[in-house]
C-alpha cells in the first residue's frame, strides 16, 4: 500500500439485501490514512451492519471494498482474519465473550494477530485501562462489569495495539464523560500515526467537541449514505 492510497474505499458497493437489510443502493466512501469520517446514523443496528460491511463481513452484489489496497472479496480466510486484525472496533452490541475475563477479551485479538510478547500487551492494555479510568486491567467477566466499565473496556480493546482503522460505533451514552477526553486523545494519536477512523454517531452531541478535527461527515439513512457539510 502506498502512502497516498485510500485506507478504506467503498466503490459503488451494493450489499446483498437478504444478508444486510441495507438499502441496495450504491455506497461510496473513501477514507485516507489519518482521516476521520463521522457517519451519522440514528439506527444503531444499521450502523453496526454498515460497520460490518466496511470490514468485509457482508457479501456484495456489486462493487468492491478495498481496505489498505486489498479487496475483501479476493482474500482467503487467513488473509481476511489477518487484515481484520488491523482494525480496532468498538461494537455497540459489546461482542464480549463472557466465558473469559475482560482482560482476555481485550488482549485476545492482539495476541492472536501479533507476535507481541504477552508482557508488552499486558503493559499496554493496563496503561490504556488507566487512561480510560480503570485502576488496572479488569479481570472480571465482561457481563459482570457495569455499562460504563464495559464501555471503557471496549475503548481499551479498540485502541490496543496499532490499528490501521478504527471502526467506532456510538457508545457515547454509556461512556462516562471523563473518558471522552482520553477517547479523543487516543483517536487523535492513532490518526497521527496514519490510522483512519470511521466513527458512527447517533447525535451531534457525541462528536461536537471533536467537530473541528473531523474530515468528512456523512449520514447513513434508509436511502443510502449521503455526505454532509462539516459545520
Amino acid at each position, binding site marked *: 500500500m502506498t502512502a497516498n492510497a485510500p485506507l478504506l474505499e467503498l466503490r459503488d458497493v451494493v450489499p446483498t439485501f437478504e444478508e444486510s437489510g441495507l438499502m441496495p443502493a450504491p455506497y461510496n466512501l473513501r477514507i485516507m490514512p489519518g482521516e476521520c469520517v463521522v457517519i451519522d446514523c440514528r439506527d444503531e443496528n444499521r450502523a453496526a451492519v454498515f460497520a460490518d460491511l466496511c470490514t468485509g463481513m457482508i457479501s456484495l452484489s456489486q462493487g468492491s471494498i478495498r481496505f489498505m489496497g*486489498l479487496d475483501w472479496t479476493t482474500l482467503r480466510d487467513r488473509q481476511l482474519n489477518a487484515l481484520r486484525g488491523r482494525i480496532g472496533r468498538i461494537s455497540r452490541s459489546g461482542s464480549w465473550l463472557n466465558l473469559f475475563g475482560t482482560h482476555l477479551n481485550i488482549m485476545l485479538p492482539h495476541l492472536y494477530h501479533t507476535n507481541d510478547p504477552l508482557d508488552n500487551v499486558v503493559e499496554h492494555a493496563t496503561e490504556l485501562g488507566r487512561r480510560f479510568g480503570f485502576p488496572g486491567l479488569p479481570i*472480571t467477566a465482561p457481563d*459482570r462489569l457495569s455499562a460504563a466499565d464495559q464501555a471503557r473496556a471496549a475503548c481499551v480493546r479498540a485502541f490496543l495495539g496499532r490499528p490501521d482503522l478504527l471502526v467506532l460505533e456510538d457508545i457515547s451514552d454509556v461512556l462516562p464523560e471523563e473518558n471522552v477526553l482520553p477517547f479523543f486523545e487516543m483517536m487523535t494519536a492513532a490518526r497521527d500515526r496514519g490510522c483512519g477512523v470511521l466513527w458512527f454517531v447517533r447525535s451531534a452531541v457525541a462528536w461536537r467537541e471533536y467537530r473541528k478535527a473531523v474530515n468528512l461527515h456523512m449520514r447513513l439513512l434508509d436511502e443510502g449514505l449521503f455526505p454532509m457539510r462539516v459545520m
Partner: protein
Amino acid sequence: MSTDEIVDPTIAPSDQFRRFLLHIGIPVAGVVSVIAVIAGVGWHSYRTVRTGALALTHDLLVSQQDYIAKEVSSFLMPASAGAIVARDMLEHGAPAVEQKIFNAYSSTMLRNVPQIQSFYLADSDGNFSELERGPDGQGVAITTLQNPGTDNSVFAHEQRDAQGKTVRQWQTPSKQYDPRGHGWFTDTIKAGREYWTHPYLVEMTRELTLTAAVPYKGLDNKTYVYAINLSLDHLNSFLNSLKIGQSGNAILMDHDGHVLAGHAMKETLARANGDPLKMVLDPSQFPVMSKAFDQYRVHGYGARTVRVKNRNYVTITANLPVGTDSWVLLLVAPEDDFSRFAMADGRQNLLFSILVVLMASGLGFLLFLQARRGERMHRQIEQAHAVANYESHALQSVAAYPELFNPEDNALILTEALADQSLARRAAIWRILHDGHTLMCIDSYDRQQDVHSGGFEMATTDLKSFFDSVSHGDALVIASAADDDRTSAFYRVYMRAFGSRALFCNPILGSSGPVGVITLEDAPRAEMVSHFVDMIAGVAAARFSAQHYTAVAAAREELESEPTAEEEPRDPSQGFLLQPAAMTAEGQPSATDMTKVDGFYPAVAIMVISLSDIVMTAQDDPTANIKLIDTMAGILQDIAHQCGLYSIRMLGHRVVCVAGCSRVPDKGAAYRMANAALMMRESTLSMLAKEDMDPVFRIGIDVGPVFGGMLGKEPQAFNLWGDAMGMAEMMAQGAPDVGTIQVSEEVYVALRQNFLFRERGRFFIPGVGLTRTYVLAGRR
C-alpha cells in the same frame, strides 16, 4: 501495519499445496503410473503366456491321452483278438485235437505276447485246462483237471521247455475245483460273446489280473469257454513310466471309481487288502485325483482345472473302451509344471520393471530437487529484488526529505529509515561534541513504539572503552553488548533499560576523523544493509559539519533565554491544610516533634481526592475559582480535624489525606479515613451543588505501608511515599464515576463490618497482581 503481525494479508496465500502437488505429487503419480503400467503389462503378458501354456498343455495332454489310449488298446487287443482266433480254431477243430490246438496256440501266444499271463479252456462238463509260463519264464506249464466232478479229481501238471519237450510231470489235488463255478466261465456263458471280467487278484501270484473270455460250441455240442488272462502289472508299469509334465500322473479306473492301473495303484491295493472291489481312491491321500474324478462324474469327460490346496492342476478324463465296457483314463498334472516358465518370465520382467521404476524414481527425485532449487533461487532473487526496491525507496524518501541538510531540522527520517532497513528495535545517531569528551544522542528512534527521543549525553569518563572504539572509527557488530568490554558500559547506561541485547555501531566519519556513531540495537539485518548505514552516516556527517554550534552552547543559550523566576520563595510545607501529626488519633491537638517522624509506617490509611482538570480549568473567573477552592479547603480542614486525620495536603489537583501514621498499625485509621471520605464527599457535593456545578472529584483510599520523613533543608517538607500512596492515587484516578469513592481490597477487608461497599470488579495491576476494588457507598 504492526511489525509484530503474524500473517501479512498483503502476501498472497501460500501456494504450498499446489507446489507440493507439482513437485511431489506429479513425480510420484508419474512413478506410480509407470509402475501400474508395467505391472499391468507384466500381468497381461503373464496371463497371455499362461493361457498359451495351458492351451499347449491341454493339447499335450490330449495327445498323451491318445497315446495312452492306443497303448492300452494295444495292451488289450492281443487278448481280444487272440481269444477270437482261438475260439474259431477250437470251434471248428475235432474234439480229439482240441487240447493240442489249445496247447499249440496258447504256447505261441504266450511266447509272443508278454502281457498274457495264462490261458484257460473249460467246458460245460467241468473239464479245465490251463496254460501258463514256466516257473523260470522259459517254456510253459500246462495244468489239466482230471476226473472233474469226482472225488479223486486232481490237477495234472506238465512242464515243457522252450522246445516243447516235457520236462516234468506231477499232480496236485484239485480240491474239487470246478471251472463252472467261477465268474469268468459263468458270466461268459451268460453273455454268449466275448466277455471281460473285472480285475481280480490271483492268489498265487498276488497280481491283478484281467480275463478276456469267449464262449463257443464245440463239434461235440458242448459249450466251451476260452479265456486269456492278462496281468495288469504290465499296464501299471507302463502308466507309471509315463511322464506327464514334471510331476503329472496317469491312472486307469472303471466307472465306479475302482483303480485298475497307474499311479496310486500300489497304495490302493495295499489299503484294499487285494480286494478289487475296495480299490477306490482315498481322498485324503490323493485329493487331486479324487477331485478330478468327482468332477468327471458330475461333468463327464473332458479337460478341466481343479484347485487343491491353493494350487491349480490340469486334469483330463477320457473314455477308454474295453470290450463292451469302457474304462476312464485320468491324467493329472500341476499347472505350474507347464506355466512355470511363464511365472519365471513374469518374475524376471518384474525385476526389470522394478529396476526401471527405481531409475525413474531417482530421476523424479532429481527433478524434484531441481525444481525446489529453482524455486529457492527464484525466491532469493525476488527477495533480493524486494530488498533492493525497499532500499531504493528508503533512500529516495531520505533524499527527497527537503530539510535533510538543514541543521535546524531534526531530520527524524534518518533514524526511521535506519530502523526500518535494519529491522532494528532502536536506531540512534550520536555525535561527538566539540569538546571531544561528550557523546550526544542527536536522535533515537524506537521502531516498536514509533517514538523519537534524543538529547542524552554521555561522558567519556563513563564510557571510556566505548568512546575509544567510536573515536577510532571502528565498526562494531556485537551479539551481546553486555558481555563485550567495549560496550558493556554503554549497555548498562543506555541499552539495559530498553531491554536490547545486540549492538551494531557504524562510525560517522567527518573530514578529520570520526564525528559520531550510528547505533542499531537488535538489528538482524544490520550487516546486510551496512552500505545503507554508511550512506546515512555520510548524510549525518554532512549535517554535523553544517551545525556550527555546539550542544553546550545551545544549552547555554537555552538557559539564558529562559525567563528568570520572579516568584517569592515559598515554604514547601505550605501545601498542608493540616500539618502532619498536628492531631492525635482522638482528634485532639498534639505537639509531636517533627524530627521523629522519619521512618517506616506499616499501615497508613491514605485518601487521594482527585479534582477533575476539565471542570477546574473551565471556570473563567480565577477569583471565583480560588474562592471555591478556599471554601472547599476550609471544609476539608474541618472534617480532617473532626475525624482526627494525621495530615491533609493539597497538591495541584489532588488532596492527599493521611491517617494512622504510627509505628504500630493503627486499626482505627481506615475507619476514620472512610468516615472522613464520606463526610468530605457529602460536603463537597453539597457545596458544588450550591454553586450549580457538576461533581468534579473522585476519591481513592488505600491502607498500606509507606515511608515518611522530613526532606530537604530548612524549611523541611514532610512527605510520604510507598505502595499505599500509589495505590490510593490509582484508586482515585480509576474511580468508576465522578463523586465516587473507590477503595482497595485491604480497605474493604478492614471496613466491611462498618461500611457498605459495592464490588467493582477484579483488576490486574502491574507490580501488585490481581486485586479487587470496591466502591464505598455509605455507613452501615
